């Protein structure tokens, strides 16, 4: 049985490999329409953001980012449903040693700071909402792993999550009702390029993204950890 399964997997892998190899045969040196170069050329002028990736993620393809946010949200919701009825406060966390617990407590504010920095400077340097949000979620996970008991409040978490999501959409709708199109970048050129206060609504969007992603992932990780819902208002 295993033999057959291995054989079939081998055939499948070889087939897939062959297919991929044959696909890479022809490649084009000149694109018919050079979207990439045009973004390079026009991106900063359109958005005022020093980080071109941000201008693509939030400016040109903002709707896609909203979609990605939604995908994360759906995944978290679905996972939450499946993991759903964890018995509250079942097994007490394994307590790590003294060094681990103290280090975790020390690490926590630094991680929050790092995450916040990444989010806020998303439009200037590599980073942004998704990355920063993941770091913030990690910030809540480290104490969980070390067993030092700092818990994530699910109620506050979900409130922040929903407000952030609505905030993102609201900023987009602001652009719509202001006479433009949905998610059109506003106030793009109201600050000096490269300064913190530049690129208009883009940092705000990233803030919303970061908060949402952070609280989502944190609550998901908390669920996975199987810890119950003790309210510890600390977000």
């Amino acid at each position, binding site marked *: 049985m295993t033999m057959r399964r291995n054989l079939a997997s081998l055939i499948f892998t070889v087939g897939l490999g062959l*297919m991929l190899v*044959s*696909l890479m*045969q*022809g*490649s*084009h040196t000149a*694109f*018919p*329409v*050079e*979207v990439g*170069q*045009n*973004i390079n*050329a*026009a991106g900063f*002028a*359109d958005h005022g953001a020093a980080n071109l990736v941000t201008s693509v993620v939030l*400016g*040109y*393809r*903002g*709707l*896609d980012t*909203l*979609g*990605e946010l*939604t*995908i994360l*949200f*759906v*995944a978290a*919701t*679905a*996972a*939450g*449903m*499946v993991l*759903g*009825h964890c018995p509250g406060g079942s097994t007490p966390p394994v307590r790590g040693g003294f060094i681990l617990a103290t280090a975790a407590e020390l690490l926590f504010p630094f991680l929050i700071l790092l995450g916040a920095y990444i989010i806020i400077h998303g439009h200037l340097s590599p980073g942004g909402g998704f990355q920063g949000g993941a770091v913030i979620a990690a910030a809540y996970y480290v104490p969980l792993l070390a067993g030092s008991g700092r818990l994530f409040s699910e*109620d506050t978490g*979900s*409130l922040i*999550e*929903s407000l952030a*999501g*609505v905030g993102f*959409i609201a900023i*987009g*709708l602001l*652009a*719509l009702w202001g*006479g*433009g*199109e*949905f*998610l*059109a*970048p506003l106030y793009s050129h109201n600050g000096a390029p490269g300064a913190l206060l530049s690129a208009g609504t883009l940092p705000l969007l990233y803030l919303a993204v970061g908060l949402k992603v952070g609280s989502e992932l944190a609550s998901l990780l908390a669920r996975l950890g199987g810890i119950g819902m003790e309210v510890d208002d600390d977000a």
Partner: protein
Amino acid sequence: MTQQAILLVLLPLIAAFTLTPLRRCNPVIARVAGPAVVVSQVMLAITLLLHIAQLGPEAVGFGGFSIPLGIAFHLDLVGMSLVALAGVTLLLLWPWTVESDSAEPSLYLLLLAGASGIALSADLFNLYVFFEVVAVASYGLVAAPNSGIQLYASIRLLLFSAAGSALALLGIGLIYNLGGSLSLAHLGQVAAQDATLFSSVEGLSAFTLILIGLGVKAELFPANHWVPEVYGLSRPRVSGLLAGLVSKLALLILLRLLWQLYTGTGAEVILLVTGLVTLLLGELAAFRATRLREMLAFSSIGQLGLLAVAFSMGNEAGVAAGLLLALNHLLIKPALFLYAHNWRAPITALGGQAWSTPLASALFVLMVLSLMGIPPLPGFWGKYLLLKGVLTAPTLGMGWVVALILFTTLVEMIYFMRLLTRLYAEKSVQPIPPLSRRHYAPVALLGAGLIALTLGMGHVSTHLEQGAAQLLDRSGYRDRLIPASLRHPVNHFQTHLQGTARQGGHP
């Protein structure tokens, strides 16, 4: 006015985002909020639909940038009708009696948002993103109750579907590599200027990869292995949603890609062959099904194969046939799954079950007859148009296609008739479970929809033909989406972009 089309995606999103904290504050309002949002969504969709029916299809841009840098929606009859129908279907199959802290209503709302996005979007990656929303939401719905076997099946579904999505992404990447843009209209323009671009090995491979990837959800061979297992185990309304709604959405993405980029290449043949194999295997497998759910799952596979065949014809009759068959399937399959929930016993033990619920069984018979294609029900018109489409298609070998379609239809008729005669046999001595109360309303409403469709076929036919013509109107699609300044090739859109970005559109 059409700028408000984005609200079709945003309304359910906002509702879904805020539903969880709302649930903790006020459970009653949370219960009502979901359906209320869906109702308002449907009303907005219908308003926009009437607007489009009067004034013709329109394009809506976002972010203030014209394609191919930005994203645009294309509002046409079929897309907008699909949004409205999605809303109505979700409302009919709404989880009214679920526990108040269950996240199912959120998943339904997210499904609606994704469906609206798929139906309206004109950008390839945007379509993929919304497709993922729908896919993940459907995983959640399938996995929701925590029974062991279902969890295994849903994890298998998840893995399989994720692999499919990865393949689809690879295909999209290949298309970007070839065409240099992610906007369907722009890619269509590129394809129109260079006919050999997408008929190369790369182009067709990209199409095949996307076909397999989306085919997971669209129940096409070889990616429909999960269907009997999942439909057999999950709850009836979830099966109904997946079979009725999600599969059509996946198919729509494929079709938009096919018609914009791949007309006149071999991609239509690929879709045709896939559809034929799906149809054949599905209907044959249903022939010896032992339970009603299993029979319906395989029948669903067969119907989706038939849809793929119909759409691959590429002429108006074929597309109209596909639309009508899809509508027929959308109305019928969820109701049939609800019936199957009641008639759970093996088919051989179902003798005489129909006599205990005469009206409901009569409706069941009506639905099955429509699926089989008996006049004057919509299924018949669909099959008639399909034959017309196949026999007027310019390619050769259509005789075989017709023969295969007739053979599989006959097989379908045989097994359904066996089922019906067993249901109406002499009354059995076994205790007969009555149709569950909460299933009455959706079944009755879907049946009423079917009857309304039958009676109103005259009106619907003109709209179907209009919708089909719009779908096939490639140059019109391109003209609406690409502003006039961009309709000549290559790099001169830089400066024009900045100009249009400043102005923005008016709602």
